[in-house]
């Protein structure tokens, strides 16, 4: 957990605190998220019961655009996109199908996509293909659900900017749960 600047587990029971410290470390490591998280504070009170995880993510990589992984050439009869990094091929195809329709998107081989209308390549290389923050949000929330005690089915989660939190309980969440979250953020030195 050296990569994480701030990591605390707060719990009235000592044994439980140690267990959850270890569980958090193992789960974050298993899901490869240690590098993404900058600060993490976990609060568990089994007497209520409530689980609150608050944290900050590091600066995320920016949006991936077509030009970042492919070359775009306008030719007669179509625009040819030569793919350099296959990792983004699936979201690229999905985006092109949505924008131009499947009948205009042709893929003769693994690394080549041809757009038939031939309207020129203006703007294609700037199209956003993949937002890393979207999948990181899903991964983070999934990981926090894995960490939380079993059976906490009532959940509230948030991710925005570089902040995220997840509150979970088996009972209806208290109305002042936002205050609790704010307090936990304050413990990490984050205001507001």
């Amino acid at each position, binding site marked *: 957990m050296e990569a994480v600047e701030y990591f605390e587990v707060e*719990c009235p*029971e000592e*044994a*439980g605190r140690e*267990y*959850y410290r*270890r*569980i958090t470390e*193992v*789960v974050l490591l*298993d899901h490869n998220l240690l590098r993404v998280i900058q600060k993490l504070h976990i609060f*568990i009170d*089994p*007497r209520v*019961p409530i689980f609150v995880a608050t944290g900050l993510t590091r600066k995320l990589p920016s949006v991936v655009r077509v030009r970042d992984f492919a070359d775009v050439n306008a030719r007669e009869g179509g625009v040819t996109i030569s793919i350099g990094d296959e990792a983004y091929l699936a979201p690229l195809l999905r985006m092109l199908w949505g924008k131009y329709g499947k009948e205009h998107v042709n893929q003769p081989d693994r690394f080549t996509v041809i757009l038939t209308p031939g309207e020129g390549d203006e703007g294609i290389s700037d199209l956003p293909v993949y937002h890393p923050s979207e999948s990181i949000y899903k991964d983070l929330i*999934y990981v926090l*659900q*894995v960490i939380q*005690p*079993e*059976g*906490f*089915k009532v959940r509230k989660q948030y991710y925005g900017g570089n902040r995220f939190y997840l509150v979970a309980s*088996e*009972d209806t969440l208290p109305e002042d749960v936002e205050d609790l979250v704010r307090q936990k953020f304050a413990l990490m030195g984050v205001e507001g």
Partner: protein
Amino acid sequence: MTHVPVTYKGGIYRHDEIIDLIEDLGGYIIQKHVIAQEIVLQALVPREDIELIRRIGKPLTGEISPSPLVGAEIAVVTPSLEIHHLPHASCDVAEYIRRFGAKTNMVGLARGFGKRIAQLNDEERDVINEHDLAVYLLGDFEACIERKFPVLRRGIDVPIVLCGGPPTETLKKIVDPPVDGYVGGVGRFMHRTKESEEIDKLEEVVGEVTRVLDRHRDVLARDPLSISPARLMDIVTENVEEIQDVLSPTPITVQMRGLRVKLPYDTFAPVIRKTVVDEGVTIGDLSTVLPSRMRDYILVRIKPFSETNLVI
């Protein structure tokens, strides 16, 4: 003649000689595993003949070791088997107990998670009660265990060994009325047990299970069963030939107080009841043949001497 539970491990070459020897000495083979070129036998053998088996097995690279849990069926009860909470400590515990000869079944409760919302339904209760012992593996918080354990143990009349995250002393303090065994420091964790301290904890669980079962055996010995379960298993195997067609690893599971026969109840319960054990005595006279809550199996509960006035 007292039988002791042992495990024999050796090469597959001439292993039938060992099986014949154990049977000739009056012992019983409970389970036989063939793993590639190796064979593992779990058996009950007469105490005085262990040395003989060891001597005969030696040229066949056979080793014989005591396995205190052979002949016991144990339920490992866990509040849930949710996929995103795997790997569970329960997998490791169930697997480790198995190494000592017990037959373990994992019982994942449908709604056992949570603190206030934890429940145990009648099917789960009956399935757990069909075993010789239940190992409960609960979570890491004492407040939670204190609240939910009374619900999860309601109606359970087999001995319970409680495992949880808090220290053993804490578990003893929060459980009322007391259960038969406690092992602290085995709560929810998200990794496989590999380190030596963790293996020591599993040893501790096995030690506690063995201790509780030994005490339970002593209680049973005060009013002995009319027939030993292992002998009854032999009789059923010899007389009900359909059991040979059952593909389960243990077509007949030996328990401390009876058997679980993996044949459909409606068809085979009358057959088993009528099977002759000794002159004029049938299995129906010595035991109660019941439908099991586990699939469509048959549960044979052997009656004690005080009920039948017979010991065979």
